[in-house]
């Protein structure tokens, strides 16, 4: 009888462990954080830390703002989709194609968007993500081709549902690789464009500011550091982080201003970035090697 009780307790414990829902038991991190708000000078136990990385759609927006023209040469061809056979390759390139699709969408490249979307669908199917979860019925895309906003929603839903499905099926490391692929591709395109002649100051600053996103990405991947595939990429990203550490970014105190009428708040802050051409070349090379090793 005793061992039944023991088993029951263990089984229940196992069950509770799995109720974190995100499928990210490994990312439940207990840390002590200092809350320095004057009235609450005490430590709190933070039960769960999530790490988010800006989506490729957001990162692609900074490329558009740079005012530079579209260049398909920087993208990973959708024709290579059949080349990806392992779960690792499929997950990373699912993210990569997401960034490429976002880039195409920004520049109204409709046919290219369809081609990339088909490649994404194929990788998603091959990874076992159910179509209803992927939210990517081809007819939805086809009927919304001319509508840039609808395309954005479809891209967003596709990745949201894939992320959700993978995490809920104990494949959080695969979800993290998708995010990593998207982030690397967006940064790769940005560094390639910034390397072209012309005044690319704003884009260069945006590349420098990816220092923060890289920290988030490493935090996310660290949740799966025991996974052999993830640990391999973590090492490369840490090398990139070392190059980023050479960039000096100084930020003033944040000042918060709320516009009651518009219901939006602005966080004002002055930033000074010291990003030398040597720093840029080092980062461009590391990102280039990393990206070319995964496509």
């Amino acid at each position, binding site marked *: *009888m005793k061992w*039944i009780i023991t*088993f*029951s307790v263990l*089984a*229940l414990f196992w*069950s*509770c462990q*799995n*109720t*974190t*829902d*995100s*499928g990210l038991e490994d990312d*439940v991190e207990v840390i002590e*954080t200092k809350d*320095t708000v004057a009235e609450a000078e005490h430590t*709190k*136990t*933070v*039960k*769960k*830390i*999530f790490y*988010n*990385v*800006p*989506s490729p*759609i*957001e*990162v692609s*927006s*900074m490329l558009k703002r740079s005012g530079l023209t579209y260049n398909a040469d920087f993208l990973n061809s959708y024709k290579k989709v059949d080349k990806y056979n392992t779960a690792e390759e499929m997950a990373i390139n699912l993210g990569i194609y997401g960034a490429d699709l976002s880039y195409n969408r920004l520049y109204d490249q409709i046919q290219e968007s369809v081609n990339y979307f088909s490649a994404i669908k194929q990788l998603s199917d091959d990874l076992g993500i159910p179509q209803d979860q992927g939210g990517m019925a081809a007819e939805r895309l086809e009927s919304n081709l001319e509508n840039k*906003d609808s395309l*954005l*929603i479809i891209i*967003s*839903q596709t990745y*949201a549902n894939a*992320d*959700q499905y993978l*995490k*809920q099926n104990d494949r959080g490391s695969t979800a993290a690789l998708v*995010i990593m692929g998207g982030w690397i591709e967006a940064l790769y395109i940005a560094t390639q464009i910034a390397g072209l002649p012309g005044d690319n100051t704003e884009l260069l600053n*945006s590349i420098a*500011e990816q220092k*923060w996103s890289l*920290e*988030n990405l490493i935090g996310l991947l660290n949740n799966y550091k025991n996974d052999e595939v993830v640990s391999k990429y973590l090492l490369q990203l840490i090398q990139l982080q070392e190059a980023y550490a050479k960039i000096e970014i100084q*930020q003033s*105190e*944040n000042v*918060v201003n709320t516009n009651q009428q518009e*219901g*939006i*708040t*602005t*966080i004002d*802050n002055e*930033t000074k970035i010291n990003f030398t051409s040597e720093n840029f070349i080092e980062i461009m090379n590391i990102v280039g090697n990393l990206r070319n090793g995964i496509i």
Partner: protein
Amino acid sequence: MRYFLPLLLTAVLSFGVASSVNAQCKNFTKKECIPTLKPYTYNGQYNNAVLAEGDVAELLLTFHKDQKYRVSVCSEEIIGNVNFKIFDTKHQLIFDQSQNSDQSFWDFVSNATQQLIIQVTVPVEIPKNEVVKTGCVTILVGFLDE
């Protein structure tokens, strides 16, 4: 054999509890949380967990300059409205939902790219119950594509 059936039942029940909580949280996020981001575009990353009264969870994310964002936090009714605060990485308080309004989201724009910490705290019911309540808590981020 006499122990086999209870053993099997316990295992099946335990698995069932986990699966139903997963499904419950997923449906909750889809139906109750994602719509709160409109008209902002969901960034595609799913952050939710089952938390208990008194639990604190944090999300660390980089926000790009000049991009309009909405941070939305929602929780199942059983654990009440969770409070959320936003800090910068120097732990300066940027936003405290309890001091501003009852709405479960916050819209903002930062004129510098920076990391922010979104901290959610599940309230403790007073008088304290003997049974600790748990429920699904979701943190979502959306951005405006302009």
